[in-house]
């Protein structure tokens, strides 16, 4: 009972989870939009506006799924590894944002560095080491960095500022899901 009370006091509140999700959404969707600008000129040559919007509907639907999966991963860490940390409740938001930043940057870096098909072996052979380094670095930074007030304050402020994107991307994603569903019903 005492243990339950102790852990309950360390669990993050809904507002913090919301803040972390906002950062995830901001990063995931921004990457998709950024990469789409490489494709857009060629799409404009041969796709109609409706078709281009449908391509974005697929993108936002996949992004929604991806953002939920990343959030689930973060919460999994929270309810397993980080729950033992004393200031977990206060540091949850900044800690989770750091984990998200490190994992997403690492993943994106892989996509940038190994974009050519000729890099296939380097892409696969270094995979385990890459992710071990990413996770180790992520865990160390996520555990220690939030103890610094300046870092915590800035990360919390980032979460607050990007929350606005949730109000843009989430409704768009739900509309996108409907579009994808309609296009795929027989």
């Amino acid at each position, binding site marked *: 009972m005492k243990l339950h009370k102790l852990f309950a006091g360390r669990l993050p509140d809904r507002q913090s989870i919301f803040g972390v999700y906002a950062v995830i959404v901001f*990063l*995931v969707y921004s990457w998709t939009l950024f990469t789409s600008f490489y494709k857009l000129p060629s799409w404009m*040559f041969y796709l109609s506006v409706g078709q281009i919007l449908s391509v974005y509907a*697929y993108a936002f639907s996949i992004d929604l799924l991806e953002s939920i999966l990343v959030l689930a991963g973060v919460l999994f860490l929270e309810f397993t590894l980080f729950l033992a940390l004393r200031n977990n409740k206060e540091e949850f938001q900044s800690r989770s944002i750091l984990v998200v930043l490190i994992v997403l940057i690492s993943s994106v870096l892989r*996509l940038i560095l190994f974009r050519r098909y000729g890099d296939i*072996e380097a892409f696969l052979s270094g995979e385990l080491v890459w992710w071990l380094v990413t996770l180790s670095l992520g865990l160390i930074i996520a555990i220690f960095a939030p103890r610094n007030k300046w870092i915590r304050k800035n990360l919390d402020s980032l979460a607050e500022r990007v929350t606005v994107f949730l109000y843009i991307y989430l409704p768009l994603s739900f509309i996108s899901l409907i579009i994808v569903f309609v296009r795929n019903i027989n």
Partner: protein
Amino acid sequence: MAKFTRRDFLKIAGGYLAGAALPNKLFSTADNNTNSPNIIIILCDALSARHLSLYGYPRSTTPHIDSFAGYSTVYHQHISGGNFTTTGTASFLTGMFGWKHRAINQGGLVLPEFASTNPYSLLGADYFRFAFSQNPWSERLVGQSYQDVDNFLPVTAYSLREGNLVTGVFKNDRTLASIAVDDFLFSLQGDMAGSSILGSYYKEKIFSSFLKERNDSPRYPNGIPEILLGGYVAPYLNEDVYNGVYLELSQLEERHSPYFAFFHLFSPHFPYSPRSEYFRLFRDGYAPPQKNAHPLSPKLNEVFLRSQRTAYDRQIAQVDEEFGRLINKLDRTGVLANSYVIITSDHGELFERGFVGHGFQFMYEPVLHIPLLVHAPGQVTRNDVYSPTSNVDVLPTLLHITNREIPSDVDGVVLPALGGVEDPDRPIFSVYAVDNSVYGPLKKAVIAMRKGSYKLIAYLGYENFDQVFELYNLTVDPEEMFDLSNKETEILSKLKQEFYSHLEKANQPFIKK
């Protein structure tokens, strides 16, 4: 749907291969209640007629196709509507020139109003309609009328990699989903994947599925052949693919009549990676006529061009052998007796003028002249047609032989020897216009016009290369060595006038009022 792995395929194929040894008419259980013939089209990507011994190439690249020609109609001057897959295949499927169907960009689509002008929609439900394209861009074009395809295999079928997301999850929106998912969000090469975490995960999953087999293939010293287009990657072995073609045809024979089957097979498209035994071929020092580098070419040196040419010829030789095995099996099982079998390509390949490949501003014969052989049901003798024909003629011919109406939009005519008449003076166009929007008039393009013996090549809108014309007389100069634009000015002027009149007509619907 249960996942169909390569191992499953090999098990089933083993059974069918054994079955191929059984007597004729093994596959005759299907109800044949119509007189419509079966139609089988085998389109080998990037197969230049200029590299086939059948058409006089000095290397013996295609003994099996040559032998198939002995009981087929051979078209000696068959020209593609484009110099790369999208435009060439779209012309083949729609029966229209590129400036009308407008699949002119890399990976582009046919205009929605013409999306139903293709064999699948026009043959109708009387036929069981089958499609397998290893080329993702061709698959997109067929995918525009996916609702009219009864069995539509994915690009990755009979390859070494696992299936893809589009055909597994988004099969009812195949074309657009392929653009969004395969070519963007989960791009495996070239541009970065648009999905940051899942894109990276997917890449790892797909690459891991074939890396071992890709790297441990001692029979492929230069690596195994691979489909590398846009964001797609799919390694494959031609022996698996052709076994797959036979397997599919066996099933069609057994279960459906009549059927229409279109196979767009990737080989001999680059990268040229034939099996080890083909490396022995063509160590003959063959030197084709040397031609000056084109001003728009990257000016690759002649030694490199020749080495690539030889690699390509070896790849063709392997394709030819696989084709020979397939035709023998089809013959033994009675398929040739009741089917039209059509062998062709979407475009050719160029190894001259400082350039290797296709799909750039080069409209010379090696990249436009494609093979066309049509075997009619039960045909036992050879027939030759020497007047120029175009791949826009295939669709009207299919409709003619199946007693269907030919839509008025179609530019092609029924092929001679299959119901049509020879018309050597008819203009035939090939269009390269990747730098244009589908929705506007063509301003930057290279367009070839074939008329009689003459061929006009028009370069429009290129910096320092605008309104440039080349003129060749292919009867006396089949290698296009001598540009006659400065000598035969009267003919040039006449052909230019005709060309501009056709271009203006084609651009008319796209000029904003």
